[in-house]
């Protein structure tokens, strides 16, 4: 039997290896300093995502020497560094940095004994996301997804004495385990149909199967439904969204932020890899009932409507942001179902802009919660009088989430809508995408209502504010980073747009 070992190329995995070692080091560091260091653990943890981030950015800008063969595939094509992988790694690492930066408050006050574990688990979760982004076949993808979520179960329940936090942890665990099972079950269907777990090979085998039988029927349909449900739970797409508000409300605020950005981005990558890449042949109305495009489009509509309408009634700002993130996932899914050279690019830019705005908004909420212990929107009343910088920056984050130019969120919404229209103008069978755009536009107006409500309370209330915000250095840095992100990438978006332009090619959507 002719068997050669796959080529191992550790260079491809350098950032991941570093993250792994550094996460272990953070655990150890907290122990050997006898859990006495308050902020040092946090700063130590910041290095974890910062170094890989710099590494990837240097690689992309061409500052690394050619001999550091970072891009391309390694480990027998199980691990693949294309633009998509690198771009999403930047998003994950950025989210991790901002989450760690806004955790300094709670590790000072509440998590006194387990700082190392808190940060270490956060790094492990990020590591899982990075593997997920580089995965090129279903099993690696599944393992990456598990490594992402299992640390987050623990992190969601990190306030052991707080009922809500424990509830959040348990809820997230049950839902997460259940959805993983669904996902795995769905993957087994795909494996049964195509005989491979490799995504590209799967795409080809499926196309052959499809061409020879035309209608693969109920097995594929079952697989698609299971996979949509499995990833839908991770993405909190309605009707699989019920866990999100409770979990966001209960878990520590930086973890909620990380869930809403990092975990969501991971779900998007998984979705893109399985559906856009693997099941590309089964998109479009003529393939009904095996078509997944309209099904996902329907979920996107549900997400935008439910997310934006229910958010209006929320009184807790974390719950409001949870529903807003459900709605934002709906907007992102518009880009996801557009299978041309614009679709995945708009998804990537959207999640990038969303990272800055949403992490920033949650960072502001975390700062407020650290000082007042409250997450009620009512308590933000009149804050503009005592803490104008805080009020202005939170407003800018919310405005970017609405999509007001010239902030980055606007360009993101623009790109998603543009992608949908670009496909609908060319392909008459895709004219249902106009409905997605229409609902998106309409619900964006609703979204303005609840985002503006927070601004209204902060700026327009006549009551004397009860609180004055003071900032710690890391928290202020996170706010400024978020602001810089939404402003700079709204006005000078060219480098990012250039980068995301090649992403659809990685999914085989067009040949550059």
């Amino acid at each position, binding site marked *: 039997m002719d068997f050669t070992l796959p080529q191992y190329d550790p260079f491809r995995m350098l950032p991941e290896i570093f993250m792994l070692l550094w996460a272990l080091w953070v655990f150890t560091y907290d122990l050997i300093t006898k859990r006495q260091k308050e902020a040092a653990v946090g700063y130590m943890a910041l290095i974890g995502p910062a170094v890989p981030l710099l590494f990837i950015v240097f690689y992309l800008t061409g500052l690394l020497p050619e001999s550091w063969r970072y891009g391309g595939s390694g480990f027998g094509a199980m691990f693949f560094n294309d633009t998509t992988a690198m771009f999403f790694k930047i998003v994950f690492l950025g989210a991790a940095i901002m989450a760690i930066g806004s955790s300094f408050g709670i590790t000072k006050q509440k998590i006194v004994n387990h700082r190392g574990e808190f940060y270490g688990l956060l790094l492990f979760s990020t590591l899982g996301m990075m593997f997920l982004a580089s995965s090129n076949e279903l099993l690696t993808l599944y393992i990456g997804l598990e490594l992402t979520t299992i640390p987050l179960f623990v992190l969601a329940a990190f306030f052991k004495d707080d009922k809500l936090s424990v509830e959040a942890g348990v809820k997230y665990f049950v839902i997460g385990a259940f959805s993983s099972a669904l996902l795995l079950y769905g993957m087994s269907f795909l494996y049964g149909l195509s005989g491979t777990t490799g995504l590209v090979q799967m795409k080809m085998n499926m196309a052959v199967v499809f061409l020879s039988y035309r209608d693969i029927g109920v097995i594929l349909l079952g697989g698609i439904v299971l996979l949509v449900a499995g990833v839908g739970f991770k993405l909190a797409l309605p009707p699989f969204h019920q866990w999100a508000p409770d979990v966001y409300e209960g878990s520590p605020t930086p973890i909620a932020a990380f869930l809403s950005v990092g975990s969501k981005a991971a779900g998007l990558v998984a979705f893109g890899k399985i559906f856009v890449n693997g099941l590309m042949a089964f998109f479009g109305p003529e393939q009904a009932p095996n078509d997944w495009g309209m099904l996902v489009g329907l979920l996107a509509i549900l997400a935008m409507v439910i997310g934006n309408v229910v958010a209006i009634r929320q009184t807790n700002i974390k719950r409001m942001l949870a529903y807003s993130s459900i709605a934002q996932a709906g907007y992102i899914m518009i880009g996801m179902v557009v299978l041309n050279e614009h679709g995945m690019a708009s998804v990537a830019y959207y999640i990038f802009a969303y990272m800055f705005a949403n992490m920033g908004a949650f960072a502001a909420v975390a700062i407020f919660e650290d000082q007042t212990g409250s997450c009620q929107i009512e308590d933000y009343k009149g804050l503009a009088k005592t803490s104008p910088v805080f009020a202005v920056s939170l407003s800018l984050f919310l405005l970017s989430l609405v999509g007001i130019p010239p902030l980055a969120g606007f360009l993101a919404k623009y790109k998603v809508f543009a992608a949908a*229209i670009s496909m609908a103008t060319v392909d008459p069978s895709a004219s249902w995408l106009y409905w997605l755009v229409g609902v998106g536009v309409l619900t*964006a107006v609703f979204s303005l*209502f609840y985002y503006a409500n927070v601004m209204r309370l902060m700026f327009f209330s006549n009551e004397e504010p009860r609180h004055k915000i003071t900032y710690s250095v890391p928290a202020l840095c996170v706010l400024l980073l978020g602001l810089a992100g939404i402003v700079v990438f709204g006005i000078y978006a060219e480098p990012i747009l250039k980068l995301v332009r090649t992403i659809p090619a990685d999914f085989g959507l067009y040949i550059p």
Partner: protein
Amino acid sequence: MEKEILTLVTFFPLVGVVLLTILPRDRHDSIKGFALIISFVTFLFSTWLYYMFDPLGNGMQMEVNIPWITSLGISYHMGVDGISLLLIMLTTILTFLSILASWNSIKTGVKGYYISMLLLETGMIGVFCALDLFMFYVFWEVMLVPMYFIIGLWGGPRKIYAAIKFVLFTMFGSLLMLVGIIYILFEYQKYSGVFSFDMLKIIGELPLSYQAQLWLFGAFALAFAIKVPLFPFHTWLPDAHVQAPTAGSVILAGVLLKMGTYGFIRICLPLFPDATITYLPYICILSLIAIIYGALVAMVQRDVKSLVAFSSVSHMGFVMLGMFALNTQGIQGSIIQMINHGISTGGLFLLVGMLYERRHTRLIEDFGGIARVMPAYAAFFMIITLSSIGLPFTNGFVGEFLILLGAFHKNNVYGIIGATGVVFAACYMLWMYQRVFFGKVTNDENKKLLDLSWREKVILVPLVLLVFWIGVYPKPLFEILKPSVNLVVEQMERAEAVRLDDDYRVEEKLTTVEVGNNELSFDTEEQSDE
């Protein structure tokens, strides 16, 4: 310098924004001073622009075209023609005057207020300069935020309701417009192979099918009609106007409403000429309804400010009527009337604000005999009122006369119904004037009112000068407007001619009949040839 002047005018207020953010919050005088100086310098830049503008030149002038986001085909493309030049002048004058007018009335949050005003100015000028659809949209949206805060923070008792209503209405319209813009982008890409938002290129080259034009006109026209506001979409306006602070109302009436009509003339008419002709009767009817309805509702208002607000609905109806008469007189009149409305309604809001500062009420029944107590105030009010009604030798006359002339050319019925609006305007304005200013001073509180201060006179004198200048010698304005108006009219005439030659419906009939019966189709062809 010719290249940079537009950038300078547009973004100079932003320099002020940066400057004001640095200043400490409690130094009110220097904040006000700086804001005033910045807005005055912006005004000076805009007069410089006016002198550099060549009234004989065709097309856009002082064009700047720099790629901004090349991968999306977005460029920083700015330029002015006669229409936008006049509106920019109006913007800079009114911003300067309203900053001066807010000197004493804004006492809380001074810093934020002046920052918002300057930010708003950049947004407004940007809308009038932008020649790139994307830039146009960006500026269009940017000015929403400061206006939201100006109404919501410094407004009247129901300010929050008004602010949110204003933003929701505008946002709804503008998002539909965004969808339209994206659609045009891809149509243009299909046609020419490149991504471009360039308004001039798109207007000049892109052939849009009739069906597409109908939809796109709908999307754009809804955004603009909400802004104008045309009759069924006007409900945000009285709330926003009445609740906004004086300067907010002035800017709102003076400039923001013009953005809607400007959008019609810059984008809707030239880009969708066939759809314009199809929609024309409906829009004319809606503007006639606006003229009459606005006037009738204004007549029964008890609050002077909401009276002026409803008179705005009526006046903007005139502007729309003139524009959709689609002939030289009508369009010229409608642009002149845009400027006039900015001056006279802006002036009325300023005057009402001055009275409100003294008495803290705006109800007509609280006044009476004010002319005896405040003679100078009454005189200024009279002049602006007459200009609003459209008395000969005031600016209002020039605009309304031309609009009605255009309307009569188009259709006698439009002209007749429109002309009644002028009569109604005289009714509600003069009746209000009589109840407020004439008669005996019935209310004791009114006896101690002070007449205008020199600051207030400084605000009003330029407006009065403009009223008479445009009323007596409007020739320079016509000269500036002529090339751009001719261009629009030519385009519309061409579209109308094409429409008459081979009507779409005849074409459709021919093809359907041809399929069914050869003989019959031959007959119809002959008939159409005759």
